[in-house]
């Protein structure tokens, strides 16, 4: 019987194809928007999960508490002694300090830029820890910083691309001026896909001291030993370091967070943003539902006599209800399917545009549940929108329906 109802519904929709087409168009637009927007949100989330997976869950970061508002203007710093103290805490496998500031960087005669210059340790183990946390990606060209490098720098990927930072790309062996000090470029990191990270300049701590005459650390990275739970360790570090610095609880000048915790807070902010956009896109689905309702009312009005005939030859109310709900559900389903296709194309195009403009981090991701969810959603929107009209149709009295003109 389901097959019969389906065939009957589709033939009815086909008979009024222009109206069906317009109705489908209205629902597919909304589904397209929701699908494309969600895929970008999920893409970012997926990327973060991947990063957390590859970079491990063993990393902890310590930063000044006013980092978010003051950036490199914070007056809180970590000293070498602080770092030594942290290294000795049980469960800490490695610790390294980093220092950064936003500084003038000049290349040839091109307009100077103000990227972040990061000083990092060149002890192989510590450097790996810093790289995992920041660059996280391999070397694209040249080599990483090594012991004994002073006025040597490695650069983010965007320095290799003309017009992104400087008019012409920087090559290995070129000299750039950091804070008016000439520094040789020895390597480039792979593309991270985020314009601000791909703009970073990395130098050794010795080089940083030479250029900026500063050696206290701006933040500290730690790695938990394999048998340690990083979250518990972060709490322990916070407690121990607070006591060591003689700061009372609630008065800490720093915070210690695991990498995963940091990711989670970004994630949460991101989800709110995407949630708002999807909510706005949902408005159009509501409008589309109203359109479907309208189409169904019209359809029932036009087919009043038909309904009368069906009823007089024995069709039950339930059957009539099912016929019209199926019809509106099919409208939604077709809209959803086409919407997915169009949304996929739009998202893919958006992803390509993002790559071309140096934001390759922004890529869509289509988990199977999003695809299935959108299809079901479209079908249900159609079916629910058709509920009232279908109910009205099912309640028609056969005699009145037959008499209707």
């Amino acid at each position: 019987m389901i097959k019969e109802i389906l065939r009957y519904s589709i033939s009815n929709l086909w008979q009024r194809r222009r109206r069906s087409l317009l109705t489908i168009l209205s629902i597919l637009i909304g589904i397209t928007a929701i699908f494309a927007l969600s895929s970008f949100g999920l893409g970012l989330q997926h990327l973060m999960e991947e990063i957390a997976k590859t970079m491990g869950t063993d990393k902890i970061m310590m930063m000044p508490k006013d980092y978010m508002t003051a950036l490199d203007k914070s007056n809180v710093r970590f000293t070498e002694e602080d770092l030594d103290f942290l290294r000795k805490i049980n469960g800490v496998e490695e610790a390294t300090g980093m220092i950064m500031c936003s500084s003038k960087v000049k290349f040839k005669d091109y307009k100077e830029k103000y990227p972040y210059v990061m000083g990092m340790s060149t002890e192989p183990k510590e450097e790996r820890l810093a790289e995992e946390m920041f660059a996280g990606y391999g070397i694209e060209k040249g080599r990483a910083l090594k012991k004994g490098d002073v006025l040597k720098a490695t650069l983010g990927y965007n320095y290799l691309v003309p017009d992104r930072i400087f008019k012409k790309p920087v090559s290995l062996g070129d000299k750039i001026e950091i804070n008016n000090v000439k520094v040789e470029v020895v390597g480039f990191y792979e593309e991270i896909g985020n314009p601000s990270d791909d703009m970073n300049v990395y130098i050794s701590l010795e080089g940083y001291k030479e250029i900026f005459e500063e050696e206290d650390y701006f933040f500290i990275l730690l790695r938990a030993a394999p048998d340690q739970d990083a979250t518990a360790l972060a709490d322990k570090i916070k407690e121990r370091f607070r006591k060591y610095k003689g700061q009372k609880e609630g008065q800490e000048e720093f915070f210690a967070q695991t990498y995963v915790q940091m990711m989670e807070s970004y994630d949460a902010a991101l989800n709110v943003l995407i949630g708002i956009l999807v909510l706005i896109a949902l408005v159009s689905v509501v409008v589309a539902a109203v359109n479907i309702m309208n189409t169904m009312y019209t359809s029932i009005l036009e087919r009043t006599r038909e309904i009368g005939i069906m009823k007089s030859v024995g069709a039950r109310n339930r059957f009539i209800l099912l016929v019209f709900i199926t019809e509106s559900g099919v409208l939604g389903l077709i809209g959803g399917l086409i919407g997915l296709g169009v949304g996929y194309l739009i998202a893919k195009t958006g992803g390509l545009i993002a790559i071309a403009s140096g934001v390759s981090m922004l890529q869509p991701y289509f988990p199977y549940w999003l695809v299935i969810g959108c299809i079901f959603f479209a079908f249900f929107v159609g079916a629910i929108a058709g509920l009232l009209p279908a109910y009205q149709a099912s309640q028609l009295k056969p005699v009145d329906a037959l008499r209707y003109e």
Partner: protein
Amino acid sequence: MKFDYFRLALSGLKHRGLRSWLTMIGIFIGIAAVVALIGLGEGLREAINSQFGFIGADIITVAASGGLGVPGSGAINPLTDKELEKIRGITGVKNAAGRLLESTKILFNKKAVFTFAASMPGGEERELIEDMVNMKAEEGRLLKDGDKYAVVLGYNFLEKERFGKPITAGKKITLQDKEFTVVGIMTKKGNLQIDQAVLMNEDVMRELFERNPDDYDVMAVKFDEAVGVDKIKADIEKELRKVRNVKEGEEDFSVETPASILENVNTIILGVQIFVYVIASISILVGGIGIMNSMYTAVVERTKEIGIMKSIGAKNSTIFSLFFIESGLLGAVGGLMGVVIGFSAATGLVFAGRLVLGSEIITAQFSPLLIIGALIFSFTLGSFFGTLPAMQAAQLNPVEALRFAK
């Protein structure tokens, strides 16, 4: 005659009762969403613009080039007294003052919070800064020359949430491990920077943060508006190039006029706004498709009627106008309801925001332009989507139309 069109169009709409309503609902949801979002977006832009403290039509801000974040951060070659003196010497400049900005920890009631500290210059320039932000004391008094280890705080410190209890005038707080007396609290400015600021005298600030005796993070220049903002800006740039010995195009400082500061911020906000509006407009488009559908149905249903009208002499243009006006009406009435609902929704949200958040962070701005624009837009939209169906109605062959009897 024209009136008849409207009467006929209206009776056509009434005839379809429920379905006309549904079509209008489609339109008004979209219009309401867009109107509410634009209203809130404009309010947000206004709120953000007011965050930029030094703004007045006659104030120019000078800072050494640096990175992101606080003015003056990352600057290699900071602005100094030397530049300040030169700027004061430019004709058309009424006065100029330098300020220091630092991030600081405040300790009060056993709790620590980070915020910004800004310096207040001494003497005449103090008045300049006070005028600029229209500084007044809500409690206590403002700073004066010779105040040592005394601070004036922004209004937000009166809130209990921050430290467990409000900081009022006369209380002691600890900044960078030094005890300060709060001599006053400023009135509420609705500007996050100022409302959370800690102000202290310049000499105290230099001592506390171990700053060089003559550098500044940012300078505010008050000028004579009669001279013209562009001329003053160019003069300041020329003078600073000379003092700092840099070539044109290689400036390591920035001179920002009120307009240019806002411009940067506004470009970003505008980008976000446009993106949100585009997504919201999708629902209007969907509503438009609803109108089109509804009108096609009306044409089909009234084929016989059209045939009769044509056979007794109605012109193609008359039939066209009839349907065109009908769809325009759908759009206009839907739009009107949408404006009303969008307006109420945004106002409600602002009200709720005030109740829940206790601050005026969410505001809405409705210009008459927005309202009139939305109305005209929805009428145009209705007519636009009604054009094709109306054309189809107009081109019906009377004989065929009459034969299409049901």
